[in-house]
C-alpha cells in the first residue's frame, strides 16, 4: 500500500530536478573553450529571462508607487519623490475594489469547487467503476479537446440564456467545467492506483461511495491539488466568456472589468489596480510553483 502511494510521487518529483547529465557533459566543461562559452551563455540566458519575464512586473510595481507625472516624464526614473503608496488607497476608494474582489472570489471559487466535483466523480467512473458505457463517454469527452472552442461560443451563449442562467454566476461556472483536460488528468491518476486496493475494499464490503470517499479521494490529494490550481488560475484568467455571461459590470470579476478603469483614473492609480490584480495569481504561483510547473510540463504529454 505504501509503495503504491510513493510510486507516482517519485516520478513526479524527478521532473525538473538536475539529472546526471544533459547535452553538455562534464567533460565539455573541463575544456577551456566551451567552458567560457557555457559560462557566458548561462549568465546571458539568466539576465535575458529575468529582464523579459520579471522586468515588466518590476516596472509595474515601480509605476504603481510613483506619481502619474513621473511615469509620463521618464518611465525609468526610480522614485524621485519617494514611494507613493497612496495610489493603492486612492484607487481602492475610487473603484469599489472590494466588490470586484468578491465577484472574483465567487467566480473562481465556484468554478474550482465544481471542477473538482466533476473531475473526481468523472475520473472515478471512467478509471475505476468502468461500466459498459464508460468508453463512449470517454470518447465523447476527449472529442471536445479537438473541436475548436469557437464553434460553440454563440450557441453556448444562447443555451445559457435558454436555461435562464445569463447574468448569474452559474453561467460562468458550468461551462468552465467542461474541461476534458481535467477529467483526463484525474482519470490517468486514478488508473495508476493499484487495482488490488479497490478489490480488497470491495471484498471487505465497501460500496462505490465508500471506496470513493474513504479510499480514492484521500489517495488522490496531489492530483486534486493540481486540478484545483489549474481551474482557479484558468478561471481567474478567463475574459471573453465571463464578459458575455455577466453583462452587468457590477457583477464582473476583476480581470473582466479592468479595461473599463483605464480611462477613469490617473495612470499611476491604474497601474496600482493592475498590480493588485496580478498580485493574487503571482503569489499563488510562487507558493505552488512546483506543482503548477509539473502540471504544465505534463500537459504537453497529455495533449500529445
Amino acid at each position: 500500500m505504501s509503495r503504491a502511494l510513493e510510486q507516482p510521487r517519485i516520478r513526479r518529483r524527478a521532473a525538473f530536478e538536475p539529472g546526471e547529465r544533459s547535452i553538455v557533459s562534464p567533460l565539455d566543461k573541463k575544456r577551456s573553450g566551451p567552458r567560457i562559452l557555457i559560462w557566458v551563455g548561462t549568465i546571458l540566458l539568466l539576465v535575458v529571462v529575468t529582464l523579459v519575464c520579471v522586468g515588466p512586473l518590476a516596472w509595474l510595481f515601480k509605476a504603481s508607487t510613483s506619481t502619474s507625472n513621473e511615469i509620463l516624464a521618464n518611465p525609468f526614473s526610480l522614485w524621485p519623490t519617494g514611494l507613493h503608496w497612496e495610489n493603492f488607497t486612492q484607487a481602492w476608494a475610487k473603484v469599489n475594489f472590494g466588490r470586484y474582489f468578491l465577484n472574483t472570489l465567487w467566480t473562481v471559487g465556484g468554478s474550482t469547487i465544481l471542477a473538482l466535483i466533476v473531475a473526481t466523480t468523472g475520473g472515478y467512473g471512467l478509471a475505476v467503476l468502468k461500466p459498459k458505457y464508460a468508453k463512449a463517454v470517454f470518447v465523447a469527452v476527449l472529442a471536445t479537446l479537438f473541436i475548436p472552442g469557437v464553434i460553440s461560443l454563440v450557441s453556448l451563449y444562447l443555451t445559457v440564456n435558454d436555461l435562464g442562467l445569463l447574468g448569474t454566476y452559474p453561467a460562468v461556472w458550468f461551462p468552465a467545467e467542461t474541461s476534458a483536460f481535467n477529467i483526463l488528468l484525474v482519470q490517468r491518476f486514478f488508473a495508476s492506483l493499484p487495482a488490488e486496493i479497490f478489490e480488497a475494499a470491495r471484498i471487505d464490503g465497501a460500496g462505490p461511495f465508500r471506496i470513493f470517499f474513504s479510499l480514492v479521494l484521500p489517495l488522490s490529494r496531489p492530483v486534486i491539488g493540481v486540478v484545483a490550481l489549474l481551474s482557479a488560475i484558468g478561471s481567474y484568467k478567463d475574459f471573453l466568456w465571463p464578459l458575455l455571461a455577466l453583462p452587468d459590470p457590477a457583477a464582473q470579476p476583476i480581470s473582466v472589468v479592468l479595461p473599463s478603469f483605464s480611462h477613469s483614473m490617473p495612470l499611476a492609480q491604474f497601474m496600482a489596480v493592475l498590480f493588485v490584480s496580478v498580485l493574487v495569481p503571482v503569489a499563488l504561483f510562487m507558493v505552488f510553483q512546483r506543482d503548477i510547473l509539473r502540471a504544465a510540463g505534463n500537459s504537453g504529454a497529455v495533449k500529445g
Partner: protein
Amino acid sequence: MTRITSPAPPPRAVRRQAADAAARRTTIGSPGTSGAHPGAGRRAGGKVRRWVRAGGLSTLVFFLPTLVVFALFSWWPILRSLPLSMEQTNFISTQWVWFDNFTKVLSDPLLPTAVLNTTWFTVLALVIGFPVPLILGIAIGELRRSRQIAAVFVYLPVILPPVAAVLLWQTFYDPSSHGVFNTLLGWLGIGPLPWLNSAGLAMPSIVLQATWASFGTATIVYLATIMSVQTELYDAAEVDGSGIWNRIWHITLPQLRGVILVLLLLQLIGTFQIFTEPYVMTGGGPENHTLTILMLIFRYAFVSGNYGTATALSVLLAIGLGILSFVYLRVTRRWSNS
C-alpha cells in the same frame, strides 16, 4: 481498460447473482430448472433490479455530473451550432433561412480583412513564437542550480490574467517619446515608433505581446520533455566524438519531434482564434487593421445581434481549422515516416 471489472476474481455483481441463484436453487430444490430464470413477465423488472443491485445506479450517479455538464454546456452547444448557422434568430422568434447566413458572411467586405489579419497574426506568431520556446527549453535544460528559478521566471507571464498583461503592454506601447518602449529605443537612437497607432505596426505589436504572454507554456512543455530524454544516448554520442551541436541536432531534436508537432498544431489552432489581445488593446483599429475573425464573430453576435450569422462564421472557421488539422496531420505523418 478492463483491469478492474473483468479479470479473474469475479466482481461483486456476478458473485451476488451466483449467490442469489444458489439460494433460489436450494429453496426450490430442483437444480437446473426455471429457478434461475425468472418468468417472462418479470424479466424486464428483474433486469433493472439486477442492474441496480450490481451497482449500476450508483455508477450512474458518479457519471451524472460529467454527463450533465458536458451535455448541456459542451455537446449540445456544439451540435446546436449547425442548425443555428441556418437560422435567423433573436430571443423571440426563429426563422429557418438555409444558407443565407453563409452568403451574408461571405459577401461581407470585412471578412477578407479579418481573414488576412488573422493569418498575418498567425504567421507572425509562428515566426516569433515557435523557435523561442524551443531554444529556451533546450538552454534551460542545461542549467543546473538555476534551472528551477529560470523555469519559474519563464512561466510567470503565463500566470498573469491576459487582460492585465495586455493593459500593461498598452502602457508600454505609449507612442510618445516618453513611452516605455520608445524610451528604451531612444537609448539605441531609434524611434519614437507609433506602435498601436500605426496600421503597419499595430499587428506586430499585438503579436509581440501575445507571444510574451504565452511562450512560457511551450517552453515548460519542451523542458519537461527534454528532462525525460534518455541521457545514455548523449554518452554514446560523446564517445563517438560528436560535438554539442551534433548532440542537439541528432538526439535532442528527434526526441522532441512528437511534442514539437503537437505544439505547432495547437499554436496554429489557438492563434486563429485570437480575440482578447486585439479586442482589449486596439478594439480592431486602426481602421480594422487588427480586426480578427473571432472579433468579427463577436461583433455579429453581441454588437449587431445576428446570432445566426455569427454562428455561420464560427462554423466556417471551425471547418477551416478542421481541414488545417487534417492536412497538417497527413503531411507531418508522411514527413515523420520518411
